[in-house]
């Protein structure tokens, strides 16, 4: 089994995700980019699990999927609220985290 291909794919996905998180202004796109990163992680987990003949990786991947779903749910809700309050889903307008 070739581990490398999976890892390269996951790295690519992850970088795409990071790029999306850092660059995209729309909150929904950022969320989607995060999902990409999580997907990259899942790929890694499953790949390493298969590689080591170990089920733990797949179990973890299942967990991550669940949490990612929840996270997206919460994230989307926040985005919705932001949009309602600021009339925008542009992340450049959201500075309330500034200390």
């Amino acid at each position, binding site marked *: 089994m070739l581990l490398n291909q999976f890892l390269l794919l996951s790295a690519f996905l992850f970088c795409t995700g990071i790029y999306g998180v850092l660059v995209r202004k729309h909150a929904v796109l*950022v969320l989607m980019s995060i999902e990409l990163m999580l997907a990259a992680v899942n790929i890694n987990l499953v790949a390493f699990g298969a590689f080591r003949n170990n089920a733990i990786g797949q179990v973890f991947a299942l967990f991550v999927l669940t949490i990612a779903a929840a996270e997206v749910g919460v994230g989307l809700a926040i985005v919705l609220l932001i949009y309602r309050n600021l009339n925008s889903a542009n992340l450049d307008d959201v500075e309330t985290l500034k200390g």
Partner: protein
Amino acid sequence: MDWFLENAWLVPLIPAVSFVVILLVGKRMPRQGSEVGIAAVGTSFVLSCGAAIGWIRHLQHAEPGTSALGALGRSVGRLTAEGHEAPVEPVLRSVTWFQNGGVKLTAGIQIDGLAVVMMFMVTLVSLLVHIYSVEYMRGDRRFTYFFAALSLFTASMLLLVVADNTLQLLVGWELVGVCSFMLIGHWWEEKENSSAAIKAFLTTRTGDIGLMIGVITTFFIVQRATGEGSFNIIELNRAVSEPRIGHTIVLWCALALLLGIIGKSGQFPLHTWLPDAMAGPTPVSALIHAATMVVAGVYLGLRVYPVFFHGLSIGTPGHSWINWMAGVGGITVLVGASLAFVQDDIKKVLAYSTISQLGYMVMALGVGAWTAAVFHLFTHAFFKADLFLGAGSVSHSGAHHSFDMKTDMGGLKKYMPQTYRTFVIGSLALAGIFPLAGFWSKDEILVSAGHNGYKLFLVIGLVGAVLTAAYMTRCVYLTFHGEYRGAHDPHAVPHADEAEHDPADTPALVELDAHAHAPHESNGLLLGPLWVLSFFAVFAGFLNFPHWSRFALWVDPRYPTQFQEIISEVAFNPILAAISVLGALAGGGVAWAYYTGRVEALRDLTLRNGAARVGKRLLVNKYYLDYLYEDVIVAGIRGPVAQAVYWVNQHVIDNVLNYAGRGAQALGHLTYDYVDQKGVDGLVNGLGAATGESGGVVRRIQTGRLQFYALMLVGAVGVFALALWVFT
């Protein structure tokens, strides 16, 4: 033992009680307390007379060999065996006064001839002065208080007289000083009076430095002799003759006590307070500053005479021709007499005369004439009190309460014949004219001085006698002879109380007033005491008539001392007596000639002759001693010295403290500013500030933009990854 001698402690106690009574209830009594004082002193006088008689009987009954006074008695017995007089112990009683180191020190009485004579003299003069004061002080602002003070004075003086130890003597001595202070300053509204009182107190107190140290020394002299310290006078007098005491301590004791005598008895150079003390009422001058208190010093000399006798080597064979005591006395005789010439105030003449006579007494002690000193003390009290009270009578009735002979007196002889007579008797007695009291006592001093080998003091005594006669002549002349210089007419010199009356409205009152203020004879209350004193001034001298000398028999101490021989009766010397009387007459004659202006050669001598002028200026300025004491020493201490010390206190010592405080504060500030605020706190603050500032820096990172955070995150991961890569 005689009741009066046993209970002589009552003599001082009764006036002391009287003092308290007058103070508490005097003002509410019908005669404002004067009756209490007179009654008390009268009782004391009776008790003193009883004691005197008791003492004389005691002497007669004393048998050789019956003495039981321990070692004293034994040594007396030895002397008796050698053919001396019968031993007579003083009457002693004592109670515990205080204790120290388990040893009880006592207070008590020592009644012997000397004490009895003093008690008699003090109570008699005090009684007469009390009676005299009732009239003289009538209507005074503090009549009651005056009598209270007189009572206290009498009590203190008698306490001093009966004392059986030097400490008790010191107590009485200081108390009479305070009474003197109170009475000199009796009219304290005027500053001169209170200043005179303070001067008197401070001057005598300066002498008391000596007394205090002397008394302390007596304690240790006895301690050296017996192993146990004591102030007891008999033990002291016995101790000083013991060879193992050592001469030095006795000499110092004698000199210290002599300083006390100099202060109290107005001896040169501390005599200057006595003339100023005349600021007090005249009865006070008579009682305190002539008859009694000022002789306390002489009394001390008499009481502890062995200290002086041994300390100053008065009677030892081959002694020098002078000693401190005789020297001081001799100088005082001349200084006092010379200063009496230039006084215009009649009381000051008498005050200087007192100084001079006290000089005689001290000189007598110095030349070993113990009995003569007692005798002169005794006679002097009477004629000097007589003179003072006479001066008071003159002032009271003849001179509008002034004492200035030059401006307010003169020619009073015809207005006040009785006062004149008593005054002349007193003056003659003072001048030592045969056969009045002063003659006998002064003569005895002169004879003893000659006999004991002090020829210089014989000469000084003679000169003093001449001067005394001369200044008393001047005094009598200015007061009683010549023209009356006072205000005949009350309208000419309106007094405050007269100005209140309007002459037009009440002519009768004015006439009465004029009558009251024209010179007139005093009434019986003033004249009575004068005549009693004159009586004693005439006859007291006969008590020691040659070859009968009762007085010496009564007072001479019978306990054995080395000076027994020197004080025993000295033969009367008719030639010397004649010389002194003639000298006195000559002095009086010259003075009479000078002051009446009848002799051309003497008139205005002080204006024409340079030497006489300088001399007079010196005398008028009282040898500049007052200047030295008041303007240099006292003003120096009160002014610059005290100020300097206080300056040092405020600016040096206090500043040390203040600077210490300020230094501590400054150090505190330094610590606070640099160590605490900038150091310790700086560290903490620095941490805080660093946090804050770094926060400021970091804050800039916190843009609040999620993506920026994410970038940081990624960057950090990158850094970690790099680190991981580098370090592994």
